[in-house]
């Protein structure tokens, strides 16, 4: 009986993995909530011409994020 329940339930390592994984996902969504809903940190383009060229824009975002 014990071995059967081991087969159908995740082991300790897997449980730890799932806990960490879902904390990270929840954290990511929480950070998104903070950025947009609390800090109001998002762009709202008023006309088509305001929308930047994709490549240059993404480079700029990454520069700001200090990845490049």
């Amino acid at each position, binding site marked *: 009986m014990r071995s059967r329940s081991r087969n*159908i339930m995740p082991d300790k390592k*897997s449980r730890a*993995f799932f806990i960490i994984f879902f904390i990270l996902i929840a*954290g990511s*969504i929480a950070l998104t909530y903070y*950025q947009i*809903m609390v800090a109001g940190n*998002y762009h709202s383009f008023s006309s088509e011409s305001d929308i930047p060229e994709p490549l240059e824009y993404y480079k700029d975002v990454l520069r700001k*994020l200090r990845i490049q």
Partner: protein
Amino acid sequence: MDGLIETASTACEWGSAYLLIFSENVGSLIYYSHLLPLIVSLVLGVFVLINNPKKLANQVLFFMTLMFSAWVYFDLILWASPSPEAVMFFWSSIVPIEMLIYASALYLIYIFVNGQKDISLAKKLSIAVFFIPILLFAHTPLNVVGLSPDCDEGAIEGPLIQFMYVVELLYIVWGGIVVARGYRKLADDAGKKQLLYIGIGTILFLMIFTAGNITLVFSLDPLYEQYKLFGMPIFTAFVAYTIVRFKTFNAKLVTAQALVAALAISVVSLLFIRSIENIRVITAITFVFVITLGAFLIKSVQKEIRQRQQLEELTKSLSVANEKLKSLDRLKTEFLSLAAHQLRSPLTAIKGYTSMLVDGSFGALDAKQKEMVDRVYQSSDHLAHVVEDLLNVSKIEQGGMQYEITQFDAERLLADLARDLSVNSEKKGILLSFAGTGEECVIHGDQEKLRQVFINLIDNGIKYTNEGGAIAVQLEKLPKRKKIRVSFIDNGVGIPKDIQETLFQKFNRGNGSKMNTGGSGLGLYLAKQIVEAHKGTIWVESEGDGKGSAFFVELPM
């Protein structure tokens, strides 16, 4: 959230949305394409989880349908909400949710390939590794660049969403390969078919979803994207079919019925949509759902009816065979009874005359003659016992065993028996001892029949104990349970565990057949029947060959 949306600045001149999703700005097709899969998905997930919450496959399927439902709800918010913040937040949040749908679908396929067991941590990590960019950049403009000036367009998607589409395609191909390999690897035919149905259903669901996303990439009419959600009812149909056919997810038929009910609710919900655009499309989709699931269910019902008919035929033939067996058994019992009665009278005469010959009633016999006549007497006595046992068995089986219940002292009965039978045990060099309670021990029962039971157990002890051995008879009172217990413990040949299980059955002679002790194999069967008729219990304990044995009889006081 409602309050937040009401106070937020509005980018488009739309009215507020009730429960974030109900708005006059959203067309009926959008509600129909969202609410139908949402209901079906939730019903499927909840029913499967309720059926067996501890099973991993059920948990993963529930999680997958939950994420899908969350996705549908978030998407409705994007359609209905007038708030730019809400649109930005839910558009950004829908990305990890969508990835979780695909990842859990792949995980589900792996579980079925693995015989419904969990997969290794390495495989889980290899599925999860593609979430790293999502975790790092979901909150940045790399995910959603910003709000579009065009209200109908909503938001401008960033490279992270393009990355997600690529990963989703990868998950689909990956899942397909896993199903194909698993199908070849699995030896069990039922397991193979389950994997096939769940695998095809899952991959079809993901492919339809991805096809909807592709319409966005190619800037096609956003209405086309709505059809991607209909993959869920198709997936549900596949799951329902495997539930009906293989009882997958340990779900019962009621789950399939619940799914049909959910579909019916969805169809009825059409009546409540005030104006329906694209009526032909909606009707066609609904028709396909109902026909698909209906066909599956009809097929399974046909199978069920066929199986029931076969079962009924089998039951009938079994019933006839059973009647025949009963009749044969009755005939056998009657024959035994008749034969035993016919044998008893001549045996009594043989025993009487041989006894008189031994006593010298017909003149003195020489030593040799006396020995021969004595042997005839012993053999006829043994045969008389066997005949008596056979008669008792036939009486019990015909329900004609009579018990004369009286009050008697078990202590005295056992002490007398031990004394009388010690003559026999001493002949074989076995010590027979009795340890009583030292006081009167009154019980209700048929004294003569219980005497036979005790004699039988002591006789067995003498038969199966070698010279120099010992038999201890012990009587104890169990006042709390209002019972007496009689133990017959010997250090004889012992009884192996497998023989112990069948020892009290008719014609089972235990080690007797090996030791040639000449028993009929009815003594212990009769003992059990008599003890149980007195509402008592009888059992044996032995460590095995050569380790002695102990018989116990418990009787109510």
